[in-house]
């Protein structure tokens, strides 16, 4: 009886160990990283974001997980501030702030031992808040849109824990601001934003 239970224990133990090893093979490739970043963003083309504001300057944090082989998921939060360049077409509003989330899938390419490139495709949400100049609260606008871009990653140490990341991204901005004139509606509701970022990444 005693021998049997010992045997049973050994069998169970060896199965669980081998199962764990198989699991490790898969999870070994799962890596996480966190990267605080700085961004500069500008709006391109004919829309109120490019006419009304100067550059958007932002800071935030990103989280990435390399899930399977060279593919992974990530999210970036950025808080932007901008100055008002032309108030005529903007409204009786003060300098805006923007909350922006970029959710994305990335693919990583190894170029050399300490240089990587990532391609990015995802969806973004935007919320621009501008204070009414009569102090009656804030006007809020913005919605969502696709984002795509790339990152260049330089490894800083032998262990590969610290990296510096340079990124460039196109963010498509969509809102729903109504106007009888379709051109004016589009002028206030659609924009293409170009942003560049610099980040310090920690892998763990």
């Amino acid at each position, binding site marked *: 009886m005693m021998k049997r239970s010992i045997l049973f224990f050994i069998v169970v133990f060896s199965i669980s160990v081998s199962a764990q090893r198989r699991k490790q093979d898969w999870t070994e490739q799962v890596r996480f990283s966190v990267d605080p970043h700085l961004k500069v963003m500008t709006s391109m083309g004919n829309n109120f974001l490019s006419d009304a504001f100067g550059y958007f300057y932002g800071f935030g944090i990103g989280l990435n997980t390399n899930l399977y082989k060279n593919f992974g998921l990530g999210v970036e939060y950025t808080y932007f501030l901008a100055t008002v360049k032309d108030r005529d077409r903007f409204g*009786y509003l003060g300098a805006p702030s923007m909350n922006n989330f970029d959710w994305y899938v990335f693919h990583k390419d190894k170029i050399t031992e300490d240089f990587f490139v990532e391609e990015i495709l995802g969806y973004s949400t935007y919320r621009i808040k501008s204070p*009414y100049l009569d102090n009656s609260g804030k006007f*809020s606008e913005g919605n969502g849109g696709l984002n795509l871009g790339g990152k260049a990653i330089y490894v800083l140490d032998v262990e590969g824990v610290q990296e510096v990341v340079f990124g460039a991204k196109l963010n498509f901005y969509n809102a729903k601001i*109504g106007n009888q004139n379709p051109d004016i509606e589009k002028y206030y509701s659609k924009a293409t934003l170009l942003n560049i970022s610099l980040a310090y990444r920690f892998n763990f």
Partner: protein
Amino acid sequence: MCVLFTQCKDDDANIFRAYVEGKFTFSDAKFLGEPIHLVVDKKIMAESFPKESGSFVLAGPYDKGAYKLQLKSFKIKSFSTETVGCKISPDSLSIEIPNGVTYVIFNDITLK
């Protein structure tokens, strides 16, 4: 559930930008130094100054109601536009723009 869903989906569905542009005919150059406004329910939604030529653009966010193009001290004699329903206010300081109109061009606004 349906109401909840549509509310979540269309954050900005009921937000408009009123967009008003046009040209003033004026004789007193002091007019260029005074701000012009779009006002809804006594709340300013847009502010600008006319250019030297008298042309102007005013745009601002609002959600509903009639609004007006308001001058500070100069009075309006007449105006021309293709938009139906606009009229000069009793004090002649503004042009009232009806509810639902979000885009207006005043080809000429002549001051007294």
